[in-house]
């Protein structure tokens, strides 16, 4: 539980640093915090699974892995803020602090043992996101996105709470283990439990932008400052899936036959909505929004199958996806900034990459690896993510679902490769691009890890 405590305290410290007008210290301080917390997160790695805070939070290798992914993503994204966050906001300290706090929420979502904690975590994370989405105060799109996000998020929260209440009514407990025990001892549970589960799931599925609860995603991702889009599409997703996984496998695996069809239907819808609509997009950023929906679909695939493999599949997939997404947004931000003069549309469209291969081979390569990984091409981490997810579905034997997924993957190749084609095969009028050292480090790191995991997936998969 060290990460939660540390993050909360150090987050406050960062906030106070902001009063000191020493803006230059903010970024290093935040990074330092995240590094410290990342290390702290793994301190108990070899310990037995344990409960904290009067059985409110739970910790084992799985939760630590998810937390690790969240923290690593946060670290990488924060490292990318240099030079961006101060353009888009007047009070950087607040945003750094909010980011740190939101990670607290994410970790709570990952480690909840009691549904109350889940709710708390979701809300901490969500509220932080609402704020960050609207952080570009002068930008109308940013404000609109924040408002939309908030309105719809509130609605979803309501549904979720309702579900929790029903569950409590049915079982008399908020505790994950207790819920599991109840399901096991009552082979034919009441409608109230079923309804509660579905409501709770719907609330959570909203957070991870599963169809048909995904409509907010493109608008919000598009409207939010790119750096926070990256933040949302990685950290929220990872935490959300960790939570759903823990819920389904921890409490409700006993009534798999009840919920799997619903989940399968949502999976198919999500895959379709994400992949098919992504094809149409002219804006790279918007495409990435749909891409995040489609990856939610693949993760749902593994959840729907829910076999012994699913756990490691989801961990692996989340990491692979997060790394590739951060790379992609990173490249986009550099380009948008370096070529600044152009309008919002062109800066974020596929055309922004035209001729990148010639002007800056490094950025082009980073982009390529990231797209390959997202498309699930072998020798990248993304391939193994997809491989493990598909494996779990094969193990469960839901062939038709797999066939849908295969078709969707092929479509995925289509839109991800548009970026690669733009970078290498189209002529562009890009000027010289200067990539700040910090940036370069982050991008190289994400790329190397992506390739490394593509070659040796067992390094990660063997752990959980």
């Amino acid at each position, binding site marked *: 539980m060290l990460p939660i405590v540390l993050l909360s305290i150090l987050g406050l410290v960062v906030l106070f640093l902001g009063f000191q007008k020493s803006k230059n210290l903010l970024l290093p301080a935040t990074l330092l915090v995240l590094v410290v917390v990342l290390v702290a997160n793994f301190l108990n790695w070899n310990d037995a699974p344990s409960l904290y805070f009067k059985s409110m939070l739970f910790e084992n290798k799985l939760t630590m892995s998810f937390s690790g992914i969240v923290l690593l993503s946060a670290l990488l994204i924060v490292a990318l803020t240099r030079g961006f966050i101060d353009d888009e906001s007047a009070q950087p300290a607040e945003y750094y602090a909010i980011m740190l706090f939101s990670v607290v929420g994410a970790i709570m979502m990952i480690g909840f043992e009691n549904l109350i904690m889940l709710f708390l975590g979701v809300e901490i994370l969500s509220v932080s996101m609402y704020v960050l989405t609207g952080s570009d105060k002068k930008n109308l799109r940013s404000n609109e996105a924040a408002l939309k996000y908030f309105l719809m998020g509130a609605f979803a929260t309501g549904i979720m709470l309702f579900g929790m209440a029903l569950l409590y009514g049915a079982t008399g407990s908020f505790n994950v283990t207790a819920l599991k025990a109840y399901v096991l001892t009552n082979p034919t549970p009441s409608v109230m439990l079923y309804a509660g589960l579905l409501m709770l799931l719907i609330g959570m599925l909203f957070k991870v932008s599963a169809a048909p609860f995904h409509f907010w995603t493109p608008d919000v991702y598009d409207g939010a400052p790119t750096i926070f889009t990256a933040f949302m599409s990685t950290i929220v997703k990872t935490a959300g899936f960790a939570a759903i996984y823990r819920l389904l496998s921890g409490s409700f695996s006993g009534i798999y036959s009840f919920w799997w069809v619903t989940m399968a239907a949502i999976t198919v819808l999500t895959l379709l909505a994400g992949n098919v609509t992504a094809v149409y997009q002219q804006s790279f950023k918007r495409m990435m929004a749909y891409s995040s929906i489609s990856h939610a679909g693949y993760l749902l695939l593994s959840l729907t199958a829910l076999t012994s493999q699913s756990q490691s599949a989801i961990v692996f997939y989340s990491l692979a996806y997060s790394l590739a997404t951060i790379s992609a947004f990173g490249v986009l931000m550099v380009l948008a900034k370096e070529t600044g003069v152009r309008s919002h549309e062109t800066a974020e469209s596929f055309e922004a990459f035209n001729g990148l291969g010639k002007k800056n081979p490094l950025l082009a390569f980073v982009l390529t690896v990231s797209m390959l990984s997202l498309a699930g091409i072998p020798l990248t981490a993304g391939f193994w993510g997809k491989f493990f997810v*598909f494996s779990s579905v094969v*193990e469960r034997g839901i062939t038709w679902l797999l066939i849908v997924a*295969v078709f969707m993957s092929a479509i995925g190749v289509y839109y991800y490769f548009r970026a690669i084609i733009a970078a290498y095969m189209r002529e562009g009028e890009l000027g010289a691009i200067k990539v700040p050292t910090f940036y370069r480090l982050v991008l190289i790191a994400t790329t190397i890890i992506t390739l490394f995991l593509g070659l040796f997936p067992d390094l990660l998969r063997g752990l959980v």
Partner: protein
Amino acid sequence: MLTLSLILIPLFAGVVSLITKNNSAKQLALIGAVVELVIAIVVYTQFQPTASHQFGFSYPWIKSAGIAFAGGIDGISLLLVMLTAFLTPLIILSTFRQPYKNASTFYALILFMQSALMGVFTATDAFLFYLFFEAALIPVYFLAAVWGGENRIKVTFKFFVYTIFGSLFMLVALVYLYYQTTSPQGHTSEISAFYKLALDAQKQGWIFWAFFIAFAIKMPVFPFHTWQPDTYTESPTPATMLLAGIMLKMGVYGVIRFILPILPLGLQSWGTTAIVLSVIGIVYGSIIAIQQRDMKRLIAYSSFAHVGLMSAGVFSQTLSGVQGALIQMLAHGINVVGLFFIVEIIFSRTKTRNIEQLGGITQRTPNLTVYFMILMLGSVALPLTNGFVGEFLLLRGVYESNVWMGAIAGTTIILGAVYMLRLFQKSMFGNKSSFTEHFADLSFSERAVLLPLTIMVFWMGLYPNSFLKLTEPAVSNLLQMIHY
């Protein structure tokens, strides 16, 4: 170790090429490819013609998923390894008169491709096979899409998405088979473990199609071929050579390695369908080739027709058919690379590939005519050239399994003559045109490419047993698994 070095040497050479200067990249790439060829020759000389895999290596790789980094060479692999090792240096050499932009990347991609191809042909682990199968696609895609002709982007993109789509089905099939295996350590993805599976007919039917689509797109088999003529035409010639000379063999190889031994019941129900599709492709491709004007496109369609015959031969599940397919893979690789190179020679001098604009080249360079003639004769399967042995065995194999299909497939020897002779006549014979008036004679490097190819045409045609003997034990072993 030898096998592993076959995979690693081109990879290493590719990386070195990537970081060298553009103007010395081609020499470096050639050296790398020649070293590879030497290793392959060593393998060839030390190979024992038995059914087992030799020069094997195996390292645990992804233990949690039972995947090993394991490879080895049996007769079937050896032939394709030899093909790859033989053609790659020639393909590199064929570029020597043609400056390519970003040469270091260009040659690195060729070498990466070679590495992946070696991996495909030697992998003994199913997932490793898949990885290389996909990995081979990336370099050639970039070669085609970056250095290709006008419509390259659209055309190669279709090719890429199409083939990826196909192989995803194979991936699913492989994962499925993986879960069917049992071993003391849990599941395993050794290909040989797949051979021991006995699935029921319905499952085999499904898996058959999953594999078939993947391989049929790769080869390509009718009606999965529409990417192919465009891609061959638009790609830069070295990429076309790689695609037609080696890469399409991955599909045939896959059928031999996976479909035949693993899915006997699937073949029972669907083998004839596959043969019929293949045979349709032979006739269809040949007929289309008759009226083509673009030399590259013409050869592309002829290649499509030829590979249809290989596919039909393999699906005939006869010793003759499979052996024929193997020898024909080698022969076709040699002939088609030679023919595409000749197209490139002509194009580089005349700036046209339209046969209506050519003519009378033989008056300017009899040497080219002779090489072209030899390769063309190999391609139309004249006896004592390499093409004959393959087509003879293939047709016999198809005939053995289905008389009518054999007879229809046989029309390839007529139609093949129709379009190849037309191509040859229109370009070489007749009066010179304004395009061919100042046609320069062959350069040294061009001869250096064509001579080895023509030597192989005759070697394989005169003494095919030196290749058939290598593969027969492995093939008959494989076929025994079908007729259990």
